[in-house]
């Protein structure tokens, strides 16, 4: 579904601050695969997502999504096939617009001059009811009044209401309180399995990196240093992961948010 071929990105090239963010990354993600990504601070996890989404153009290499070369496509065009959630729950929604208006923009049906129809309203209401947060009765309220957890749930719904080819989750529960985080995570699992979505998820929680999904990637200094799936992954523990990191990178994992339990 997603294929990266020798993707490179260097920031501040030619200066003293030169930083190789993505160092010849090649990766093939199969349709329906759910991959978790872990790595130290500045390993290139979010940068990898940015490259796939088109937040910046890569220096070299090719990116293919569903067989189509998207390497040079602008960000907004790629967004047609890619859903993305950020750590900051405020990033995915427009605060001064109502829940319904936010959903209408994300759902993307109709022509430029079409208005929100009755059928669409009904659909939004049904999908919001599935979140079980009472949002279905607050369609006309501005999103700015919602809590962080509610906004992230809405963002998840907006990203998946028309199932995307690829769903990218960038520590999307990290800024929420534990109860809300758990709720968002279980919603995520549900929506991913129901739609058989291809999904990449960055997490700082080593245990859930192993519990969730079917494959785990470890990044360090812009390279994929460990790629595990199948039988080997089933028996892996968190200490094993830390050991693998040390063996591959020659130093201990340092991530100020990393959960080692």
């Amino acid at each position, binding site marked *: 579904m997603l294929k990266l071929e020798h993707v490179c990105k260097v920031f501040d090239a030619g200066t003293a601050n030169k930083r190789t963010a993505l160092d010849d990354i090649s990766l093939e993600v199969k349709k329906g695969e759910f991959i978790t990504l872990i790595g130290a601070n500045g390993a290139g996890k979010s940068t990898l997502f940015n490259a796939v989404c088109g937040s910046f153009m890569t220096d070299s290499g090719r990116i293919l999504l569903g067989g189509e070369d998207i390497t040079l496509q602008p960000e*907004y065009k790629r967004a*047609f096939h890619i859903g993305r959630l950020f750590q900051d729950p405020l990033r*995915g*929604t*427009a605060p*001064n617009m109502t829940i319904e208006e936010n959903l209408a*923009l994300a759902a993307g049906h*109709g022509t430029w001059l079409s208005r929100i129809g009755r059928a669409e309203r009904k659909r939004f209401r049904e999908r919001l009811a599935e979140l079980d947060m009472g949002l279905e009765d607050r369609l006309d309220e501005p999103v700015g009044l919602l809590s962080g957890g509610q906004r992230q749930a809405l963002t998840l719904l907006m990203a998946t209401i028309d199932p995307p080819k690829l769903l990218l989750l960038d520590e999307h529960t990290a800024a929420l309180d534990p109860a809300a985080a758990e709720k968002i995570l279980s919603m995520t699992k549900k929506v991913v399995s129901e739609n058989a979505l291809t999904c990449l998820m960055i997490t700082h929680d080593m245990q859930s990196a192993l519990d969730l999904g079917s494959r785990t990637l470890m990044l360090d200094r812009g390279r994929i240093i460990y790629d595990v799936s199948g039988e080997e992954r089933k028996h892996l523990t968190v200490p094993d992961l830390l050991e693998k990191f040390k063996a591959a990178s020659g130093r201990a994992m340092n991530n100020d948010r990393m959960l080692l339990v």
Partner: protein
Amino acid sequence: MADLLPLLQTAAELGLISSLTVLALFLSYSMLNVCDLSTDGCFTLGAAVGAVVAISGHPYLSILAAMGAGMLSGLVTGFLQTKLGINSLLSGIAVNTALYSVNIAVMGGSSLLNMNKTETVFTRMGAHLAATPLAGSQKLCVAALAVLAVGTLLALFLRTRLGLAIRASGDNPDMVRSSSIDPAKTTLIGLCLSGSVTALSGCLLAQAQKSVNIDIGSGMVTVALASLLIGGAFFGKRRRMPLRICGAVLGALLFRLVYTAALRFRLPAFMLKFVAAAIVVLTIALPYVKAQLPLIRRRFAQRKEAGDAEA
């Protein structure tokens, strides 16, 4: 009392005409979150183009021509900021400056055009109304019709998908992008529309007062912003869109009314722009200062306590 009525009528006429610029700023400033400083030049452009076309004998076409010119001006401002990476304030200022030359060129190298004997939309309307009870109020009628039309269209437009995208572009461009819409495109379209309405406003003012001079639009952006902020005080952010649009028009009318009253109390006419600037500064600064007030109060109390202890 008898001399008050024509005064109020003039205030309403001018208020309605300038409320069109306020509606344009409602779109660019309140919705798109772009402070379009080319507004002054665009207003004059509308006045100049409208006047030239009207003088050449096409009163109705003058309206369309002015709006088209305004749209073009908005397109340039938008292009500078979305495609050439020029800061939105700076691109507005650049276009505004350039428009000064353009406007004089449009007026054939002169900085003043007279339309005393020209057929305008107002004279045409006057002829239509001559035998009705509304005789003599053609300025009010034309202005009210224009405001009604623009206001209604704007309210309907903001509910369309494109309208929502324009609102979201001012609210959270990231979200627009992730909805597969190019915020550069929506900003461009929004500025074109607001430019055309600004130019319409200028065109009508010129035809109503039967002359254009190159300064007709100067300070317009501040006056319109003041009106917009006054309107926002009545129907603020949390209100429904049609109400907010009414608020913008109301703000323009109120501003004119206050100004007319001030004139009655012998405030010199040239003070209009000072008053507008003061209103803008006060409305934006007051909430900020108000938020600082508890801190200032505590500091003051502390200083006083220290002073008391010393004594």
